[in-house]
């Protein structure tokens, strides 16, 4: 590198770590304060010898680490618990234990990277990207096996001859005058440098894109896109009828489905008998289903006075003698099969629910046709309960 005639510093090279520590102590005691020491590895006790106070770079690590940790915690809260709630393994949306490893990693990462960047920024005095010691014989020596010290011209007590004799008296192997480079500062925002960076960035990414995506494209993960299976309605080359969707064998019954033997018969000669025992829960369910499916036509109390009266074929009352005399199985048959204008409900209401509706209709019929003797019984019950 071309050097100017402007002096940057006077440097000296020493042989052993003990000598350099003694030299640093002496230089400090002489009252110099713009000096630095370069060694191939960290020397214990050097901070004290140079009279350095403890480094402030730890605060950069601390604050950037804390920032990284809290940022990623907020980020995970926002993405997983707030903006797009994702249910993972039955855990709460904000699953703190699962977030801690990530928070820890990001804290360490941001802390370490920011420390590195801060050190570079301080050392190079960013945006400049050069140091006068770069590319000097002095630096080449002290980064291999020697220990060096230099005092810059910025020091108020700087005196070339005095410093050289001081270094010699301390046992320096050699002393060296370091001149500033001709072009003193290389800015990072130098036009040529920025254009070069852009060229490198565009060139690298463009050629990578062309090479990987156009010239030698390989799907990165295709084992989900292409699977060894037939999709619905696809042609099969294996079966004679070219269908990949196979029809079930004759007489196949769906799981949990019990076929109804009197399906489609208008007036069956025999019907099923009621398999249920009318418990309170069953009647509650029957009431719910009745109000959902039956009450629009038959009315809330099965009196044929529904809210749709006049807009629809009227549903008959279920309190007629004919219907009271029907067996449970017959009522079930009508719900399952439909009758006259009433459609079949076997697809909407399950088997168990249909029997529950039958039981509930019996309750309504009994309630509608209560006798005076029932009142006596109710009174009896309430008095016995009262005691």
């Amino acid at each position, binding site marked *: 590198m071309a050097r100017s005639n402007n002096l940057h510093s006077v440097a000296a090279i020493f042989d052993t770590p003990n000598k350099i520590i003694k030299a640093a102590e002496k230089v400090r005691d002489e009252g110099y304060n713009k000096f630095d020491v370069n060694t191939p590895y960290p020397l214990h006790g050097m901070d004290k010898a140079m009279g350095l106070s403890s480094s402030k770079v730890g605060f950069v690590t601390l604050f950037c680490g804390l920032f990284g940790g809290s940022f990623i915690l907020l980020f995970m809260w926002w993405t997983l618990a707030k903006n797009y709630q994702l249910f993972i393994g039955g855990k709460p949306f904000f699953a703190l*234990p*699962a977030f801690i490893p990530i928070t820890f990693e990001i804290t360490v990462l941001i802390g370490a990277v920011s420390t590195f960047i801060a050190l570079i920024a301080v050392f190079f005095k960013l945006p400049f990207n050069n140091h006068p010691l770069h590319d000097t014989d002095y630096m080449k020596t002290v980064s291999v096996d020697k220990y060096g010290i230099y005092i810059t011209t910025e020091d108020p007590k700087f005196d070339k001859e005095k410093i050289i004799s001081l270094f010699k008296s301390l046992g320096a192997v050699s002393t060296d005058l370091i001149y500033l480079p001709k072009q003193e500062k290389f800015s990072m925002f130098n036009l040529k440098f920025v254009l070069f960076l852009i060229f490198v960035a565009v060139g690298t990414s463009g050629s990578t894109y062309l090479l990987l995506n156009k010239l030698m494209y390989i799907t990165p993960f295709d084992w989900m896109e292409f699977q060894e299976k037939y999709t619905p309605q696809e042609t099969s080359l294996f079966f004679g009828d070219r269908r990949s969707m196979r029809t079930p064998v004759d007489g196949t019954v769906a799981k949990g489905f019990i076929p109804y033997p009197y399906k489609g018969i208008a007036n069956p000669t025999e019907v099923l008998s009621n398999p249920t025992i009318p418990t309170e829960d069953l009647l509650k369910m029957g009431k719910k289903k009745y109000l959902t499916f039956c009450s629009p036509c038959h009315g809330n109390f099965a009196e044929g006075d529904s809210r749709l009266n006049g807009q629809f074929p009227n549903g008959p009352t279920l309190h007629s003698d004919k219907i009271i005399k029907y067996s449970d199985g017959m009522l079930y048959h009508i719900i399952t099969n439909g009758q006259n204008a009433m459609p079949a409900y076997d697809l909407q209401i399950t088997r168990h629910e249909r029997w529950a509706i039958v039981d509930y209709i019996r309750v309504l019929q009994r309630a509608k046709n209560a006798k005076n003797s029932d009142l006596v019984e109710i009174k009896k019950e309430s008095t016995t309960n009262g005691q």
Partner: protein
Amino acid sequence: MANNDSGYIKKVLPSKIGKIGLILFIIGAVTGLYGYIFDPSRAVFSYLTSFWFLLSIAVGSLLLVAIEYAASATWSTPFRRMSEFLASSIPLLIILVIPLLLSIQYLFVWSHTDVVANDHMLQAKSVFLNTPFFSVRVIVILLIWSLFYYLIIRNSRQQDNSGDQALTKNNIKLSIIFIPLFAISLTLQSIDWIMSLETKWFSTMFGVYLFAGATCSALAALAFISVLLKEKGYFHPKITKDHFYSLGTLMFVFICFWGYIAFSQYMLIWYGNLPEETFWFMQRWEGGWKFVSLFIIFGHFIVPFATLLSHPSKTNLKKLKFISIWILAMHFIDLYWLIMPSMHGNGLHYSFSWMDISFLAASVGIIIFMFNKMFERYNLIPVKDPKLQRGLDFHL
């Protein structure tokens, strides 16, 4: 390169130290014995907690000695004798374990044959968890520890007189054998004594968890005693803040390690969410235990972490003394938290008892008494250790 001129002058501690230790031990032992007669099923749990407190400091200190030899560490050489003194209660453990072995039926559900007969899982486990095998295992492990304590410490003491460097080499070999043995044996001991209190629970990290706790407490005890001796002027004058910085850093490392292990154990069980594992943590989240669990997170990890994080705080002797006592207390609370909620196995309900304190006093008394006794008889610094001079000259 024997060092006769290490600059160490032997002093004797004030006689009241030994008396304090003896009095603490006697008070603790007498009240504890009274408690055992009065309510043996409660007393054994207190005894077990304090027994583990003593065990983890003693065996952890022996591990520190072994690590110092195996790693050929120099900065810790002046501190090694103190760890040796702290480890001196290892042979006593063989005697102290006898009351526990005699009252196994109060501690472990698996020791009741009638319960085991009706429980398939306990039957399957009874190959390992049965009283004879358990007792043999515990005694053999304590004997192995005592053997290594005897061999390593004998060599170390002989060197004070002879200055023979071959003794250091012997100890390096012994330490390298001891460290893996320690890993296995402490895991076995922790499974036997603490994990099997909750017979149907298992965690593969449990041994490491107790290892981390034991090392933390051994380092804290070492830091506390060395700071105290340094302040009172009993320690070598060449011991500087740089030594204490290294000690503080090691303590900081093991606090982080403890936090890492404790969290990993919790997170795996929390994530797996299997009822046969989670119930152990659920017990420790019921009622007042919730606050103990939270206190352990803060007290055993966050407080020491924050205190020891910065460079100056590791060299500040007052802070170091405070935090080492704090860690010792937290280790006891940690053991308490591990052992006490498992008391329900024998149909007991946990409630705080004065016996917890009397047994703790007895174990602290043993540590102080043994330390004082060793201090009287041996040098505080391994005066002819070949690494000593480098250790004394150590600086950052």
